[in-house]
């Protein structure tokens, strides 16, 4: 089964007929250039459910989603999220859930293996976290995201 994306604008060049591919199979989804490592990272560490939710947040949640006030996913928050995931080592059996907040931030939540919930909200400047078991919450700049990844999973 194939579909054809309509030509959006005439580019300054086009490939010869034999080289051009005018149908895109549904079964193939090419990530944005340079992002295959990140796609793999999310799949490996958070699983297919979170990967799918992130894909939708990135591609289908435009400004005004939800009740009309939801913001587009913040590109900086997304970058910080990726850097957190790169450093995070989730214990086996922990299945984080991923949400998009009304402000366009990403929120990652999971039940700690020591009990209680852990929430990390990724913002354009860093992250805010809450560890229920310790009753602790704080904000960290994005330069300390690596430290945070170890702290919330300890």
């Amino acid at each position, binding site marked *: 089964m194939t579909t054809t*994306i309509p030509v*959006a*604008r005439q580019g300054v060049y086009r490939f*010869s007929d034999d*080289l051009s591919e005018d149908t895109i199979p549904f079964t193939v989804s090419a990530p944005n250039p*340079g992002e295959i490592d990140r796609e793999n990272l999310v799949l490996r560490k958070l699983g297919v459910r979170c990967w799918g939710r992130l894909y939708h947040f990135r591609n289908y949640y435009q400004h005004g989603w939800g009740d009309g006030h939801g913001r*587009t996913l*913040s*590109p900086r928050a997304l970058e910080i999220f990726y*850097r957190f995931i790169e450093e995070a080592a989730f214990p086996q059996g922990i299945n984080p859930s991923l949400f998009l907040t009304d402000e366009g931030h990403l929120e990652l939540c999971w039940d700690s293996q020591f009990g209680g919930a852990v929430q990390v909200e990724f913002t354009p400047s860093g992250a805010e976290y809450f560890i229920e078991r310790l009753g602790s919450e704080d904000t960290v700049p994005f330069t300390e995201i690596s430290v945070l990844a170890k702290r919330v999973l300890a």
Partner: protein
Amino acid sequence: MLWTTYRGFLKDQMNDSLPIPRLDRMPVRINPCPIIEAIIEIRFVSTESWRTMPGLLFSHIRERYTVSRDLPLATFPEDFRHQNPALMYLPLVQFVRTNFLIQFGPRVVSLVTSPNQYPGWQEMKTEMAWLLEQIKISGFVSEAERLGVRYINFFTEDIFAHLHLRTFIGEKALESHEVSISTVFRHVPMTARLNVSNSVIVGGPDNPRSGSIFDVDVWIGALDFELFSNGLQRTDEAHDFEKRIFFGLLKPDFLAKLNPEYS
């Protein structure tokens, strides 16, 4: 240097991951100029609805860009566009002046040279500095997502014969075939996508020409630039990286035929 950038820089140096020769010096001009289009692109998110955005920008640029025209995608319903990620960063409107176009969409604004009229980097950068100021005043950018510089070069001959870049099947080089190569290089904080093809058509129905393209798109991600403070400086760095890829891949004898001028 940002911590994240520095760490990436070290990783990059250790891996020496850029397989492109580095020239001692790079030309400032070649003749004939193969650049058919150069683009500086800003991707962003906004809290403004698309309906108001063209007006916000146009009111600040209309003295230079007197003509505006809708692009074909603008005729598609908004709901349809929202359901197609492939359309997200495409422009819907074009503003035109001599030598330059501004292309504008809900998530993208770009400065584009008129086809085959590349005026040189300094002039392009000067125009970009002015455009950045107008974008800032217009106030529709909530957050910048990506800053890119793209150069599309056209050659009438098979460009693979003149590049340090070839494709092989086993030991045998693919020559005299229609070939298109896409690859991505990372050079923290920049990423570059290189497209080279020896089978393209450029120009409109009135003056189509067949040949090769050498298309390099270099960009910087959201955490590695501040649009209104160091955005212009970052475009300079992306431009330098683009030149390194272009001139690094050209064979010296071919470069010599392009009459390079050095500063």
